[in-house]
């Protein structure tokens, strides 16, 4: 059977593809944020598989890419949080979260 690194490497490649497809096809912006997180986690699993292959000196994996993964996870979380905050402000202002450029002009935001 395949070794662990190749198995999860291929799994990561499939995750990136699935995430990319969902990112393009799903119209709801929140679905696009989720799809983007799936692409991100696919890339992270790919780096994790490479780090797993680099395991030496008594460690299960190469610590340098694993440390970068931890940094990547935190930054990915912050980017998702910012995207969701933007989306919610858009939903509150325009009452619709359409990203379609030809959407009817949203009513001017009436000061609540």
């Amino acid at each position, binding site marked *: 059977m395949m070794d662990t690194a190749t198995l999860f490497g291929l799994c990561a490649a499939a995750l990136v*593809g*699935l995430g990319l497809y969902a990112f393009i096809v799903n119209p709801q912006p929140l679905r696009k944020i989720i799809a983007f997180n799936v692409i991100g986690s696919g890339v992270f699993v790919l780096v994790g*598989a490479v780090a797993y292959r*680099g395991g030496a000196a008594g460690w*299960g994996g190469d610590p340098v890419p694993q440390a970068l993964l931890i940094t990547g996870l935190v930054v990915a979380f912050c980017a998702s*949080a910012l995207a969701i905050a933007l989306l919610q402000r858009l939903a509150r202002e325009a009452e619709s979260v359409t990203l379609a450029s030809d959407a009817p002009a949203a009513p001017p935001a009436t000061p609540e």
Partner: protein
Amino acid sequence: MSEALNAGLALFVLALAAWMVVARDTFAAVVGFVAYGLLLTLVWVQLHGVDVALTEGAIGGGLTGAMLVAAAARLRRTEAAARAERPGWPTRAAAALLAGGVTAALAVAVLALPVPAPSLAPETAANMGATGVGNPITGVLLAFRAVDTLLETTVVLLALIGVWSLAPDRVWGGRPGPRHRADPNETLAYLARVLPPIGLVVGVYIFWVGADLPGGKFQGASIIAAMWLLAVMAGLSDAPPISRGWLRLALVGGPLVFIAIGAAGVATAGAFLAYPDGLAKLLIKAIEWALLPSLALTLALILAGVPERPAR
């Protein structure tokens, strides 16, 4: 047996990802993502990345899941309109083609990885003695590639500033998120009274053990942030107004200490973020202790959301 477990795990993760693509309802996709985060934690353990599993569990499983579930439920009324704009089959076919191409390219790259796997582990092991910490990942994060961690803490701060900048002008300086009022003797209030003390102990433990075992300040900070958020959601405590001086000082305190120690390295050890030998462990500890409160506060406030209520 381990291959069977890996294969099962990989299959399950792919099934969840496929579900997130085909699910009709956003909320169903979000619940799929929560389960996906938990499964990824298991994948990291199988890839011998226990530190990464800890981070994925704390941030991917806990914080991101709660954030997405709350957002999905709040955006439910915009669901039908948004779904109506589903692209036609030509776009979907082109997207499938592109996604298939990217996957194929990555698969070829994975199958063609160099056989003597390049690794920085031997060099890291050789220089670990200078850092004085036992956990190689903490060594990499705070000694060999300390500039990455510095940039990351500033990126987290910038994300918070980005979220705050979305506040309408009339509540600028106000309190983030809605005022949660909960029935004092309700289940949620009980959970928010019992869990945070335990969570605080676990968070500090995971932060403290990070020097020699998997753990560290990011995982500890996200656990502490989650616990405070639980108390806020249960209405037991409230987010402070963002105009408070002490709050802003606490937010920048950690990164400032990091930069100060880094700058001091120029004088004493010849380069930015270089530690004079013998003092490495002490300085790393100082940086971690300074970063923990700032990171926990920043992550919690990012989750608390955009300011919505006047300060008063």
